[in-house]
């Protein structure tokens, strides 16, 4: 007999809370008893090794998968999310890694795809362009022109467009799946600035990342997943990278921390 842990009570002001969420694919237990609290105006990083269940968890919250077990509380109400569209209506926006942009359309068309503004039966291009600029300026996004096809934008700019698009539905929670993967140094910084801008707007941001430097730079708290289970929640300001890595890999004497310790020793010996 396994003893089910009593779920932690949900604190007031939590916009999204998961309790005991489980998901299995055939014989594989992808998620087991996951607990997660997301607060407005906070960046929560979700980290873990490959196969730890990050993507499954994100897809479960986004409504791509339905959880087998457990509850999801959004804005104090228990909810069931059956499809990505339902999640979006609730106010959970997700920017997946592939961004889902139409390369042949310009920035304005991509931002408003599926929810175009109209004047009568015709598209209101002027108003869409004006509010596109307004939104992009609020995010301090550096897009040279909104009338060029997104194919001609850089990786960071495309990421910016995808994130800006997710904001049009007035979400409360934004999930970013590896937004800085495959980005250059300057572009990564641009996207991290954008994440901070989202936090300033009072949004709850869930940031999935493999890059510990990015996580430490922008996140307020870090939730670690390991083998489909919670493996600790850390407050960034009070934690060292090593502790988080230890939680990710599940051991203090792992390759990463050994390497780091060796470097520190060598540097100490050199000086």
């Amino acid at each position, binding site marked *: 007999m396994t003893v089910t842990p009593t779920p932690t009570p949900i604190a007031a002001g939590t916009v999204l809370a998961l309790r005991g969420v489980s998901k299995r694919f055939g014989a594989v237990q992808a998620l087991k008893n996951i607990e997660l609290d997301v607060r407005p105006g906070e960046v929560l990083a979700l980290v873990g090794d490959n196969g730890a269940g990050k993507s499954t968890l994100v897809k479960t919250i986004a409504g791509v998968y339905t959880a087998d077990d457990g509850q999801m509380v959004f804005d104090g109400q228990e909810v069931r999310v059956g499809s990505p569209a339902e999640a979006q209506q609730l106010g959970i926006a997700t920017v997946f890694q592939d961004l889902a942009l*139409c390369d042949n359309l310009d920035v304005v068309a991509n931002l408003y795809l599926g929810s175009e503004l109209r004047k009568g039966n015709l598209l209101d*291009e002027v108003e869409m362009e*004006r509010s596109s600029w307004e939104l992009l*300026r609020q995010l301090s996004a550096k897009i040279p022109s909104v*009338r060029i096809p997104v*194919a*001609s934008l850089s990786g960071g700019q495309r990421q910016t467009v995808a994130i800006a698009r997710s904001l049009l539905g007035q979400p409360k929670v934004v999930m970013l799946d590896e937004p800085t993967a495959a980005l250059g140094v300057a572009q990564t910084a641009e996207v991290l600035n954008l994440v901070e801008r989202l936090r300033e707007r009072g949004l709850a941001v869930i940031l999935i990342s493999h890059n510990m430097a990015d996580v430490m730079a922008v996140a307020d708290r870090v939730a670690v997943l390991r083998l489909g289970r919670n493996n600790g929640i850390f407050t960034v300001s009070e934690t060292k990278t090593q502790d988080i890595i230890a939680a990710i890999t599940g051991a203090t004497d792992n390759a990463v921390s050994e390497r780091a310790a060796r470097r520190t020793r060598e540097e100490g010996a050199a000086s």
Partner: protein
Amino acid sequence: MTTPVDGSKTPVQDTVPEAQDPAVLPADLQDERLIASRGVSGAIAAFTSRLRSGDLGSVPVVLGLIIIWAVFQIANSNFLSSRNLVNLTLQTTSVGVIALGIVLVLLLGEIDLSIGSVSGLAAAILGVTFVNEGWPLALSVVAGIVTGAVIGLFYGLLYTRFGVPSFVITLAGLLGFLGLQLLVLGKEGSLNLPFDSPIVKFATQSFLSPVVSYIFIAVTVALYALSRLRGRGQRLAAGLSAAPTSIIGVKAGALAVTLLISVIVLNGDRGMPSMFLLLLVLVVLTDIAVRRTRWGRSVMAVGGNVEAARRAGINVRMIYLTVFAACSTFAAVGGLLAAARLVAVNQSSGGGDTNLNAIAAAVIGGTSLFGGRGSAYSALLGALVIVSISNGLSLLSLDSNVRYIVTAGVLLVAVTIDSLSRRSRQAHGRA
């Protein structure tokens, strides 16, 4: 929003501002990386840089048309005569209407190979119900058009429900509806439409009188200029940059001159055919539907990236259904017009090269085979090219063997240009 509303009151957009103060620049020109290009010279510079990067639009087809016309005019001085050009517009209409439908399916990155058979079937239904059964003309016409729409919906259902490639579905349709056409026509296999019926009169004897044609030009140019000026006003009011009035004036003037020359030449003979006017109206309406409506935007999105369109909440199935239906409907209308112009329906209606002519017209006109890129005007321009070739070669008394070979060559050139410009666009980040 830092953009000043008062920026709209001073005409800063017409002149290059001395100081690059972001407070007076329109909202969309504030990025320092943007290459400033304003005024008429700026517009020309932007146009040439677009061409260089492979965003060719309708430039190749216009150039091709000029070359083809010049060659035929040198070979036979009757080619550009008023009489022949009126014939040319009459011949262009049905190809152009069918090609409009092909443009729509190509925008989705799909294809319809059965348009010839569908146009023949619609013509057969018109002939049999109107001539043999004595139905009222309007009812027969509607029956033909509705048949086209139903066939398109059927294709759309097969495509969206079972995921059968459109190439295969419509290949089956090509054969199946040809069979149905022969079945509908019955044993005689050939029907003559009465000369005095309105549809035949419309297709063969209805021309705009000179006065009406000049009024038509004035109204068209005025509508164009007004809509552009209104758009400019709205953009300025929203704090965005807008094309200066000088450019709008130049464009409206070019439009007026083009239309005026065409109409003066056509008026040298019978005048502008009503049927050709119908094609022009259909092209403009389709263009508006594609560029300015939510439906058209969804079509472009599905053609560019289906998955992105689906995730954006677009009803992708509905888009496929409506586009296939529109394509077959245009094919049916084209078939009816062809039958009316030839005053007959027979077993070869919609047969022969109808199919490939329409597809070739859309591609030659500049609509990409790869989806998500093209315009309604490519149907008109491409149809003009295709019909000019066959018209010119028959003026030179050359047989259809030469015509097929020349048309094939032009089609190959057009597809090669499409593929090359696609590669160039990718290299220049304009894919």
